[in-house]
């Protein structure tokens, strides 16, 4: 338990400040009601809707040819994107922390652009350069590569922003000791720097994965949404909702929800483990 929480517990036991503590509890109750009305009840409705036709209907919806193809493609492309992010994200974080060059502040600020830029604009922007009418020497519009590119764009900040603070705090004495004992830079990175970064990389990768699984806006223009080829799960869902197949859409949604919830649990497990090791 953290120090402030202990202080509160002590204050509470001593009977002091009880009046002051009543306010947060009321705030908590109101906030829970707000959260329920907007988030929890609607998500419960999705789970309920997915079971309306019984387990067999659920199974049929989830394993239907087009649904299954969309989910399989989504998971595969997300894995690829996360692996690329692990390498490039760590590299970018390393360059931003350990390297010095003019314009570094600007580059650092730009990393957040994918979080701030609306996803539909992200898709359009990539299409303008790499699409059929773009000036790039190749045209990736409406291909699986295009989907991967859009996902790389929107997930870029996760690993960078997760690794960067850890790298900044890292004690450099160990690295210097290793170097003075004759270790080469590559060995120092692999044996000393990297092991310290693993929890942060894993946390960032988990968040990027969850984001990639559910991404819609950036993919919808650039992928062309070709069933069995470039259609991702969320685009498939959108079509099902528009054609009023809410039960089928709900079933696929539940699969996505469970996957991303597991990922969130993984991320919080990794980060609490990282914190414990620090102490």
């Amino acid at each position, binding site marked *: 338990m953290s120090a402030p929480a202990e202080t509160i517990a002590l204050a509470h036991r001593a009977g002091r400040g009880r009046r002051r503590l009543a306010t947060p509890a009321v705030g908590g109750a109101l906030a829970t009601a707000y959260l329920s009305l907007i988030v929890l009840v609607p998500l419960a409705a999705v789970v309920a809707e997915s079971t309306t036709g019984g387990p067999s209907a659920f199974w049929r919806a989830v394993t239907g040819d087009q649904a299954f193809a969309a989910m399989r493609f989504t998971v595969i492309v997300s894995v690829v994107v996360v692996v690329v992010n692990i390498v490039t994200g760590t590299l970018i974080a390393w360059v931003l922390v350990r390297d010095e060059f003019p314009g570094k502040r600007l*580059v650092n600020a730009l990393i957040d652009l994918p979080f701030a830029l609306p996803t539909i604009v992200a898709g359009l922007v990539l299409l303008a350069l790499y699409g059929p009418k773009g000036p790039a020497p190749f045209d990736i519009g409406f291909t699986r590569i295009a989907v991967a590119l859009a996902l790389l764009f929107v997930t870029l900040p996760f690993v960078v922003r997760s690794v960067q603070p850890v790298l900044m705090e890292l004690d450099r004495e160990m690295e210097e000791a290793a170097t003075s004992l004759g270790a080469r830079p590559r060995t120092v990175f692999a044996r000393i720097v990297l092991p310290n970064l693993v929890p942060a990389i894993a946390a960032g990768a988990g968040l990027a994965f969850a984001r990639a699984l559910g991404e819609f806006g950036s993919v919808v223009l650039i992928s062309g949404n070709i069933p069995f080829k470039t259609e991702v799960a969320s685009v498939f869902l959108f079509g099902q909702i528009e054609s009023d197949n809410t039960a089928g859409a709900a079933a696929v949604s539940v699969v996505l929800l469970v996957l991303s919830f597991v990922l969130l649990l993984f991320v919080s497990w990794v980060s609490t483990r990282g914190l414990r090791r620090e102490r």
Partner: protein
Amino acid sequence: MSGSPSRASRLTLRAIALGYLAALLAIPVAMVFYRTFEGGIGPALDAVTTPAAQHAFWLTCLMVAIAVPLNTIFGVGLALGLVRGRWRGKTLVSALVDLPFAVSPVVVGLALILVYGNSGWIGTWFAENGVRVIFSTPGMVLATIFVSLPFVVREVVPVLREIGVDQEEAASTLGASPAQTFWRVTLPAIRWGVAYGVILTTARALGEFGAVAVVSGKIEGQTETMTLFVEQRFQAFDLTGAYAASVVLALLALAVIGTMTLLDRRKEM
């Protein structure tokens, strides 16, 4: 420095990192700016001042104006409850509050339809009373609130933990009421955290596409936000309109990043 890679490999790593960022972020975004103003500023200006474009802009502002204050009040309240309060279900709520980050925007839309749609759990009651939630502005506001809900909580909780309760206890020992303690002691101490949360909430509310698309019904000039307008213009082969509206949104995004950088510097001081 002794513990660092050689100059050559340092330059190589820098080149790879910057090249990747240029190819993925900088050049594509610059491309849209170039395409927008390629025929001069006139056509771009015309494209974003059509009645539909203006309506979309103001509708987006309305979303932000409702979602951001509500989520800020909720966020600060819940953060106080989570850090300072002791109540049943606290741990569960603290885990559930991040849920909107893990849910696909399309699933958000579906969830809201199932509850607030005409045949939904609560929607039937609204329908009987002549209130249209889904395929109308209230539904879009709900979707915007949903997706941007966790930001303030997330930013304020660690700040509250860090500042501790010493000053608050001192204030209440000296006779300050809970309200006075909050306004005079707690809020000034967490203000940069709140500001950061508000900025992130605003960015998300401005830019939400998927969840709003599902519940809006995409009625041009009625339920079309800026992001929906971009898509609609693109599908109608009006690239100038799509690019020009994108530039407006991109400028807002750049303003958000600029503010975040300024706040970072404040927080460091």
